[in-house]
C-alpha cells in the first residue's frame, strides 16, 4: 500500500439492459486504488473486470447501466468527486487529466483517419486551451520520445505503424496530461510475447518516473507478477480476494484464486498434474444463491449455498481481503488456502525460507516454492 486512497469503489452494481432480462455483470464490487499503486485486476472472461473499470468512469457503453454503489475520485487539487453523480461537464474536466485509458487493441483504439500528431494533441487542446500550437507540438514530440518513438513519426497514420509502436503511442497518449490513474484494459493481450515484455518494462520505467497509479486489467495472472503491487481477483461480478502480489501467488486465500493459479503450467520445476477449475462460469442473469463460486468450489459446505460471504480483511496489516466462508475465524482453514505468508521483501518465485513446510499441492507458486526449496536457489 503506497499511499492514501485515490479511487474508491464501493458496492458497485452494473447491469446490461433493464427489465427482467438484465445481465448482472457486476454485483456489489468493492475496490480501492491507492496513490501510485499498481493494482492488477484479474479474472476470467465475463468476470466483470472491464465492466467495473468502465462503469466506474462512466464510460460503459449502452446498454450498460449502473444500478447501485458509490465511486469517489480524490482529485489532485484535494476535492473528492462523486463520479456517479457528476454530469457530463464535470466528468469532462476529470477525464484524461485525472484518469486516462489504454485499451487492448491499438488498431481499434486509434482513429484510422487522423495523424498521430492530431491524436496526441487533441486532449491538450481540449484541456489546456492556453497552450500555443508550438507548445502542443513540442509536448507531442516529448510524449513520443518518452515511449521510445522518434518524433518524426508524428505525421504518420496508425496503419503505418507496427502493433507494438501503436500500443506505445496509446500509452504516450494516455500520459499526455500526467494523470493520476491510468486504467489499462488488457493492454498487451494482442501483442506477441517479446513485445509484451518490452511494453511492460517501459511501463515500469514510466511509473517509476511519474508515479501514476495503474489499474491493470487482465485475464493473464502471470503478467501481474511483473508489474503489480497488489492484485484483486474478480469472479462473476464480485471481488473475491485482494492481496499484495507476492502474497497472492505464494499464499492464495480464496479457492478460486487457488484454481486460477493452478490453471497455468509453471515453466520450471517438476511436472505436476493440471487441475484447472471444474464447471463453467455462471449465467449472469441467474446467479447461484449464496456464494457465486460455490457450485465449482471443492471446499464448499452448506453455508456457502445459503449466504454470500462478505469481503473482509484477514490477517494482520489490513492488506488482505477475502470473501470466503472457509476463511471465517470459527472454522479450520483447508491447508491449500492457508499457506503461510511469504516474506514481504522477497520477490515471487525465488527462494523460500527452508523451514516452511507446505503440503505438496498443485499450483505454480507452490511448485516453484517446492522446487526452490529442493534446489536451494533460483536458476
Amino acid at each position, binding site marked *: 500500500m503506497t499511499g492514501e486512497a485515490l479511487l474508491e469503489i464501493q458496492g458497485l452494481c452494473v447491469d446490461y439492459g433493464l427489465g427482467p432480462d438484465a445481465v448482472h455483470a457486476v454485483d456489489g464490487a468493492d475496490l480501492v486504488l491507492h496513490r501510485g499503486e499498481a493494482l492488477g485486476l484479474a479474472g476470467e472472461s465475463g468476470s466483470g473486470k472491464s465492466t467495473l473499470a468502465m462503469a466506474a468512469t462512466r*464510460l460503459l*457503453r449502452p446498454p450498460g447501466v449502473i444500478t447501485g454503489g458509490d465511486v469517489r475520485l480524490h482529485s489532485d487539487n484535494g476535492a473528492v468527486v462523486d463520479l456517479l453523480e457528476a454530469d457530463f461537464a464535470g466528468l469532462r474536466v476529470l477525464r484524461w487529466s485525472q484518469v486516462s485509458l489504454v485499451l487492448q*487493441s491499438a488498431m481499434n*483504439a*486509434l482513429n484510422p483517419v487522423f495523424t498521430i500528431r492530431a491524436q496526441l494533441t*487533441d486532449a491538450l487542446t481540449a484541456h489546456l486551451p492556453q497552450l500555443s500550437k508550438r507548445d502542443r507540438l513540442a509536448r507531442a514530440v516529448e510524449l513520443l520520445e518518452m515511449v521510445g518513438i522518434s518524433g518524426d513519426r508524428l505525421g504518420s497514420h496508425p*496503419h503505418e505503424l507496427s502493433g507494438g509502436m501503436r500500443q506505445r503511442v496509446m500509452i504516450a497518449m494516455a500520459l499526455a496530461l500526467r494523470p493520476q490513474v491510468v486504467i489499462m484494459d488488457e493492454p498487451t493481450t494482442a501483442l506477441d510475447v517479446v513485445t509484451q515484455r518490452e511494453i511492460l518494462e517501459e511501463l515500469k520505467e514510466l511509473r517509476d518516473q511519474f508515479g501514476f497509479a495503474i489499474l491493470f486489467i487482465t485475464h493473464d495472472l502471470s503478467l501481474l507478477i511483473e508489474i503489480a503491487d497488489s492484485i484483486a481477483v474478480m469472479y462473476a461480478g464480485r471481488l473475491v480476494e485482494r492481496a499484495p502480489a507476492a502474497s497472492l501467488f505464494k499464499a492464495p486465500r480464496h479457492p478460486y484464486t487457488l484454481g486460477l493459479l493452478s490453471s497455468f503450467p509453471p515453466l520450471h520445476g517438476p511436472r505436476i498434474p493440471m487441475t484447472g477449475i471444474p464447471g463453467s462460469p455462471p449465467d449472469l442473469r441467474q446467479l447461484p444463491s449464496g456464494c457465486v463460486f460455490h457450485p465449482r468450489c471443492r471446499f464448499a459446505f452448506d453455508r456457502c449455498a445459503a449466504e454470500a460471504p462478505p469481503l473482509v480483511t484477514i490477517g494482520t496489516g489490513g492488506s488482505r481481503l477475502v470473501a470466503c466462508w472457509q476463511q471465517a475465524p470459527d472454522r479450520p482453514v483447508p491447508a491449500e488456502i492457508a499457506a503461510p505468508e511469504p516474506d514481504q521483501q522477497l520477490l515471487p518465485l525465488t527462494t523460500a525460507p527452508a523451514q516452511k513446510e507446505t503440503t505438496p499441492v498443485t499450483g505454480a507458486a507452490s511448485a516453484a516454492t517446492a522446487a526452490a526449496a529442493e534446489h536451494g536457489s533460483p536458476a
Partner: protein
Amino acid sequence: MRTLARRLAFYLVTAFIAVSLDFFIPRLIPGNPVDAVLAKMQGVTITKATINALELQFGVGTKASLWAQYTHFWGNLLHGNLGVSVSNGFAPVSTVIRGALPWTLGLVGFATLISWLLGTLIGALVAWRRGSWLDNLLPVTTFFQAAPYFFLAFLALDLFSTKLGWFPSGQGHSNLDFPASNWTYLSDVLDHAVLPALTIVVASAAGWIVTMRNVMLTTMDEDYVLIAAAKGLPKSRVVWYAARNAILPSVSGFSLAIGFIVSGALLTEIVFSYPGLGLLLVDAVGDNDYALLQGLFLIITFAVLAANLIADFVYVFLDPRTRQEA
C-alpha cells in the same frame, strides 16, 4: 496513387464498352432502324445524303464491313461527330446535346450535392441520438425512397405550383428577352429550378440517410470513439471523430448511387419540361430519333463515369489507408 490509376483505367475500359454497346445495339436488335426513323418523318423532305448517313450510322443496307463501320464510328466519335438529329431539324446531335447539357449538369449536380450533404448529416444525427423520436423518420424515408422520382415530381408540381402557386409549373426559365440583366435571369432560373431540385433531393436523400445511420451506429461502437469520449473531448468533437470515419462508405456508395440518381433526375426533368437531357430523351424516343438516343446514352454514361472518378479521388483524400502504396 496506384489505386487511382487503376480506377481510371477501369473507367476507360468501361467507356470503351459503352461505346461498343452503343455501336452494336442498333445492329443486333431485329428490325430496320432506318425505316423506323423514316416512318416518323412523313412530310419532311430528306436528302439522299442524310439517308446514307443514317444507314452508315446504324449499319443498315450498307456495303461496308462491320469492322469498317466500327472504326468509322470511333473516328466520328473522336471528332465529336455523333450524327444527325432528325427530330431537331437535322442539326448535329452534338450541338443539340451541348445546348441541353448545362441545364442538366447544373440541376443534377447541385441537387445531388445538397442531397448527399443533407442526407449524411441527418443520418449521423439519427444515429447519434438513437432511441429518440428521430428514429421514426426512417419509415418515412423508406417511402420516399421507394416512390418514383417522377411521381414525386408530379406531387410537387400539383401541390406547390398548381395549388399553391409558389413556383412556376415547368420549363427552365420564363420567356424573357435575352440578355436581360444577369440578376433577373439568374433569379428566374433559380425560381424554376427549385421544384425539380427539391424533388431530386427528397427522392435521393433517403438513401444517404439510411446508409449513414447504419454505418454510424457501427462506428459509434468502435474503441476510438470511446477513447475520444474518455479524453474528455467536447461532444461535438466525439461525434466528428465518429462521423469522419462513418462517411467513407457513403462516399464509395456515391459511385453506386450516382447512376440511379441521374436516371431519376432525367425523369424529373421530363415532368417539369426542364430543358435538359431528359426532355431530349423523351422526344427522341417519341420520334425514333435513334442518333440522338445513341448520343445521349454516351454523354450520360461518360458523365456518370466522370462523377465516379471524382468520387474516387475524394475517397482517397478522405481515407489515408488507401494511400499506402502496394
